[in-house]
Structure formats: C-alpha cells, structure tokens
C-alpha cells in the first residue's frame, strides 16, 4: 500500500491496519512523528523509495499518455464517424433527388421533341433539365440555401414534371411577403420527395386536372412549409396496387426522417413534420394530401 499524503493517514482508524512506511527524503516537508528513521535505515529506504517513486511516476506518465491517446483517438473516431455520416446523408439526399425514374423519363420526353422535330422545345427542356441538375448538385452539399434558390429549384423540377405529364396539373408557389428570398434560409429540397409523391402517386390517378400548392409561411418565428395536392390521397394510391414505386418512396421518407432528426439535434423540438389526409377530413369537400414542415427560420 502506498500513501502519498499524510491526510489519508490521519483518516485511518487506530489499530485497524498495519502500516509499512517508507520515507522519501526530499519529500520530508512534514516529518512523521511516529517514525524517526535511523540514518542507516533512512539511507536504505531512500534507495528503495526512490526506485519505487520512479516506477510510480513512470506508471503515472504511461497511464496519462495512454489515456490521452485513447481519448484523442475516440474523439477522432467519432468526429470521423460524424463526418462520414454527414457525407453519407448528403449522398443519399442526392440520390433521392436524382430519382432515376424521373431522370430517364424526363430525358425520354426531351428525346420526343427531338424526333418530333421541335428543336425549340427540345432545347428549352434540355436547358431546364440541366439547370435542375446543376441546382441539385450544388444544393445537396449545403446545409441551407436561400428560399429564393429553393423556389427556383422547385420551379425547374415542376416544369419538367409538367412536360412529362402533359400539363396534367398546375402548380402555385406562395411565399409570404415577410419572407426575404435572398436572406432567409431553408434546408434544401425538404419538400421535393413530397411534391414527387403528390404528382406520381396522387395526381396521375385523377381524371380532372391536378393542383399542387407549395407555401412558404412564417409562423411563430419559424418557417412553415406546406405541400398540398388534390390527388387521390395516400390510402387510395396504395389501394391501386403501387408496389413498384415503393422502394424509392421509402428511401425518400427515410432520408427526410434522418434530416429532421439532425435538424432537431441542432434546433430542438420545434422541428417537425405532419401529414394530413384531406380526404378524411369531413368538414370540407377537399381531397388529397397536405404535408407540413415546421423548420426554424435561419437568416443569413
């Protein structure tokens, strides 16, 4: 047993423990009254204690170094892991927005203008497509983009979908006048998977013309983002035997969940999403789906 401080000695109960005491000369600032070593014994024990002291400090140093290395490597590991996680989320986000079906079907639609010999429309939609791809490539690397840029991206996306689906729907983007398009920020393309669902799982089943409304609103100091459609609704579209498209859809939902989770870590509980089945609400005759995001308003 090694005791460095005399304070600990004072706390021990009498008679309970037998003590062996070695005294280290240079440390004898507070001499021990109970034990006065003879000069010879003092010399011998000094040698012993010096040896042991050395091994103690060596152990201590080793311990400290090992702990430091361990702590640093653990911190490094988690940092790297976090970085990888963010990178992975970015990649998945990019993937979810570059839905292969959307990409290849849009290109096929553009091809139709080429072979139909309509160079104006072929050129227009090709440029439209590249603008969208460019924005998605830029945006998916950023945590936040301006609402102006978000609006532009959504417009390009919807214009291409309008081309693909032969103007089967119309869309409106409403932005509350208090919102500053160049200085208010939003995580990029939160709404996109839900706009895609609205078109490909709601509106294509409609006989009549579809409507999609996207709203950027301010509420309680935060941003409220809404996507509303008048499509057939969630339940009906799954009734219509939609198995083929589920895979991509679930990917988008998962990514949205992960993104919301990350946002919640930073901004707390005010971040959330809700989905309302408008066909189910009895008060109105509305049908369709309403998706609502509550996101903190970030100002550049």
């Amino acid at each position: 047993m090694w005791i460095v401080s005399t304070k600990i000695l004072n706390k021990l109960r009498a008679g309970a423990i037998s003590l062996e005491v070695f005294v280290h000369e240079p440390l004898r600032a507070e001499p021990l009254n109970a034990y006065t070593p003879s000069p010879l014994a003092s010399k011998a024990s000094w040698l012993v204690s010096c040896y042991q002291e050395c091994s103690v400090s060596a152990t201590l140093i080793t311990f400290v170094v090992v702990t430091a290395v361990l702590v640093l490597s653990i911190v490094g590991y988690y940092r790297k892991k976090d970085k990888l996680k963010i990178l992975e989320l970015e990649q998945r986000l990019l993937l979810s927005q570059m839905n292969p079906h959307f990409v290849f079907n849009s290109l096929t639609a553009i091809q139709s203008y080429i072979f139909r010999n309509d160079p104006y429309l072929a050129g227009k939609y090709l440029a439209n497509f590249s603008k969208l791809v460019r924005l998605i490539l830029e945006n998916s690397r950023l945590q936040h983009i301006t609402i102006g840029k978000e609006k532009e991206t959504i417009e390009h996306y919807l214009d291409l979908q309008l081309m693909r689906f032969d103007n089967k729907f119309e869309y409106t983007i409403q932005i509350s006048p208090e919102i500053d398009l160049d200085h208010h920020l939003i995580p990029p393309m939160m709404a996109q998977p839900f706009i895609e669902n609205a078109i490909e799982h709601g509106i294509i089943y409609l006989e009549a013309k579809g409507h999609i409304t996207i709203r950027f609103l301010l509420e309680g100091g935060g941003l409220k983002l809404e996507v509303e459609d008048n499509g057939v609704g969630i339940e009906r579209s799954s009734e219509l035997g939609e198995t083929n498209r589920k895979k991509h859809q679930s990917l988008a939902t998962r990514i949205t969940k992960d993104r919301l989770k990350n946002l919640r870590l930073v901004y707390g509980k005010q971040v959330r999403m809700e989905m309302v089945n408008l066909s189910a609400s009895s008060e109105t005759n509305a049908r369709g789906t309403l998706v609502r995001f509550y996101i903190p308003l970030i100002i550049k």
Partner: protein
Amino acid sequence: MITAVIIDDEALARESLLSMLKLFCPSIEVVGQAHDVKSGVKLINDVRPDVAFLDVQMPDGSGFDLLMKFDSISFKFVFITAYQEYAIKAFKFSAIDYILKPVDPTDLINAIEKLSETIREEDTNHKFKTFVDNIKTNKNNPQKILLKTLDALVVADVNSIVRCESQSNYTIFYFTDRPKIMVSKTLKDFDDMLSDSGFFRVHQSHLVNLNFVKKYNRFPESHVVLNNDEHIPVAVRKRDVLKELLKNMDRNRFAI
C-alpha cells in the same frame, strides 16, 4: 408490314417511340397505343398486333402484369424501361428483349431486326414463365436461367451449373444433373450475368461456380479442383482475387 402497339403511361414516351419507329424502322406500323395495363390488354385483344412495346412501370401495374393477363402470349414483345434494376437482371436471365429509355436508335433497330426471327409461341411462353419465376422467387438474384442452344430452349437452375467453357462464339455449359449443352452466346455474356451469382472467370476460357470448387492448387500450374475432380486452369492474374473469394466463401460456410 409488322403491326405494333405501344403501351406506356407517359404520352411523350409513346410519342418518342412512335417518331423513332417512323424514322428508323419503316417495316413497323403502329396500329394502336394505350396508357395502362387495363387499356393495354383490351387494345391487344382488339387489334391482335405482331408485337407489343411495353413500359415496365405504369400506374395500374407493370408490363409483366399485362402479359400475365394472357393465357398464352401469341405476340412478340419488347420491354422498354427507364430504370428497374431487378427487372433488367431478370430480363437477361430469361433472355427477354428490353430497351432502355431514352431509346438508343441502334438498340431499337437491333430489336426490330430480331423480331423477324421466327419464334414459336411455345418458346415465348417458356421465356416469360422463366421470367415470372425469377421475379417471384428472388427479384435481385434470379434462380433460373434460360439458355438457347441451336435447336432448343433450356431452363436451368443457376445452382446446377458447375462451370462454363468458351468455344469461340459459343459457350459449353456443364451441369450437376444433366448432360452438357452448347449455347449460342459468348462466355463474356455469361460472365457478366453470373458473376453476382457466385461464378468466377478463372481463365479466359473458363467460368466456374465457386460453390463447386474443392481446392486451389498452385503447382505444377495454377488450377482449381472441382467437386467432380476436374482440374480447371487458373490464369496468373486471377489468382489473388480467386484466393480472396475462396477465403470469403469459407468464412461464410463457417457462418452457416
């Protein structure tokens, strides 16, 4: 004249194919179009076309669902798909023709040329049945493969193929449960198809099912010994990858 129908939910995709057929395939006359499975089945029954161009994914079902509505498929069909990984794999294993969107004019011309080959209705149904089996059992890992010999179509279990050997533009298949056959495709074609199903090209002329490899010997010349004690040569630059694959397989065997 070959009569054709186009069944695709997107108007512009139909439009695009129609224009291309007019431009590049004058022997085809498009006699009707439909936008989903239901109207497609009706159209085919009404006009009885020689060939149907089918989109894979439509709102009320797939092009496969459409074919399944027929007891016997008396027309030829070509799938046109934007993206459907599992379907493409299953197409390949079932020797079903498909074209990717947007359509490459060369692919379209080749597909149309193939249409002039006479195919027995029985064979078409055979192919389609293999395809349906494949997507029903394991979408991402087809279990059955359709092999065309000079005079027959053979449906084989992927697991029953021991090895393939190249012979100029043909490939000889060796099985566990039937005599060898000669198939009119190159070894490279099968290498591409089967490499995800546990096959490895050990040599320019040899593709082996790793499940049947008993051991790897380095001397006198690199070769693998199969369960049936055949010796198959291993190319020098394939050695390292092969050893790695066999090691991984052993680990998996232990895991089971």
